[in-house]
């Protein structure tokens, strides 16, 4: 049998009377993207998805990297991918970071790019689709921001939508 806690919760006003220290860390960074990620981001501006091939294991790696973590050797060549892919897994996110219910749930997932090796998926949004229509293995394609709005970021792709028009909403 679980005993009931005694007393009551502190009110917000009472909690604020307890001494505490407020601070806001000032930490700003500018991460060097490096040759692989740097070129990947540049290519996104052009509406292209770039990968690297490792001739050791034959895998096509995306996001591209200058070394293969399996073979531990430098990767060998750039490979352009069509940008299409299939849904590897997905979730429907109903609350925001403050745990408030959001009106339109966010569809997030991992997609495996066509032309890339297994285990080389990236995370992104899905759109133009009803949540209940999503399924693992669904074929999707990128919906790009207009070229003028692209800034060399993963969000230059707005989301991925079903390739089959009848699955779209």
């Amino acid at each position, binding site marked *: 049998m679980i005993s009931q806690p005694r007393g009551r919760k502190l009110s917000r006003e009472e909690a604020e009377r307890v001494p505490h*220290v407020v601070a806001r*860390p000032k*930490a*700003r*960074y*500018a*991460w*060097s993207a490096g040759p692989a990620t740097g070129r990947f981001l540049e290519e996104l501006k052009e509406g292209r998805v770039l990968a690297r091939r490792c001739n050791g294991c034959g895998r096509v790696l995306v996001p591209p*990297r200058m070394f293969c*973590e399996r073979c531990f050797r430098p990767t060998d060549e750039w490979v352009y991918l069509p940008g299409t892919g299939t849904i590897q897994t997905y979730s429907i996110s109903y609350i925001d970071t403050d745990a408030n219910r959001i009106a339109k749930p966010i569809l997030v997932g991992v997609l495996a790019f066509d032309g890339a090796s297994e285990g080389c998926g990236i995370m992104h949004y899905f759109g133009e689709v009803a949540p209940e229509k999503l399924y693992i293995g669904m074929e999707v394609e990128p919906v790009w921001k207009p070229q003028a709005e692209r800034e060399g970021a993963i969000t230059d792709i707005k989301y991925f939508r079903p390739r089959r028009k009848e699955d779209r909403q």
Partner: protein
Amino acid sequence: MREVSIVGIGYTSFSPVTPDLSWKELMFEAATRAYADAGIDPRKDVQSFITCAEDYWEGFSIFDEFTPDQLGAALRLMHTVAGDGLLGLANAYMQIKTGLFDIVVVEAHSKISDLLTYEDVLMLAFDPIYEAPLGGHPHYLAGLEMREYLAWTGTTEEECAAVAVKNKWNALRNPLAPYGAAIAREDVLSSPYLFAPLKKLEIAPLVDGAIVLVLAEGELARRLTDKAVLLEGIGWSSESPWVGTRLPDARYARLAAELAYAQAGITNPIQEIDLAEVDDRFAYKELQHLEALGLARPGEAGQLLLEGAFDLDGQLPVNLSGGSLGMGDAVEAGGLQRALEIILQLRGEAGARQLPDPEVGLAMSWRGLPHGSGAVAIFRREA
């Protein structure tokens, strides 16, 4: 009793900025060189990997999840130490000493040029209630300690300035060191006071770079390479965080050294140690650390320095690499920078600054402001 040896070293150059590479490629370069040097395949031969990194320097929380790929450690035994590289080395030493593993890799790096607000992040290391609200540039803490150290020991500002002169001169003979310079004591003394009595040229500038060491059990090490260097002892210690209660005697260094000396069987460090690399992020720290390590009597390091005792041809050469003043402050990689020079010297690979026949070397690290923690490692050339 199992012995522990260094069988591979790999490193990048050190540079104030590295905009063309990410920290991943820096680590990959150092690791590739270390594995080639040791003649091993990380995917098959290494049993445990250790990195040393501080989340706030990197700008990632839980940075350890980002470290395996570029070391060949994906899906292998791997962990991260949030501290200086010598603490990672201590972990590796114990893993081999206990018989758990035979080959272990240690990595430390700096990509501090990615951090745009270094001073603000450093201030976050100060006590948030008692010290951080005072604000200001956090290096003033070094000015406070330097003044107290000078008052306690009778060391002079001239002697501290001479540390910067020596280390920047040494750095001219180290191709890895970006801050080599032939300067006179007058140049240091006339450089502006930033945190009086600390002057501009007495403060090590920040650098990027990466270092990887491969360690192996002693017998295996002899089979792998003919240039193995024994790691005979390693100790570490941390002060209480209360800055106001600390004395200017770097007690952390003394306690770390006592443990390392005991493990290495060293009873008379001045006689037995042939060269030392000690933390010199602020010039006076070299003198303070030498005294704490028992390599000079309290208050005498400055005078010995002026007499040339710590020069390339002196009785105890100190910071032949150029130290942090010459190589740059590589944050958590500082300790491995110091260790790297000792290993190069004991292997006879230190080029223009090579000592004739060194047998025993000491590397000492300090984690930097506002920390009172340090580590000491003792290396010996194979007989």
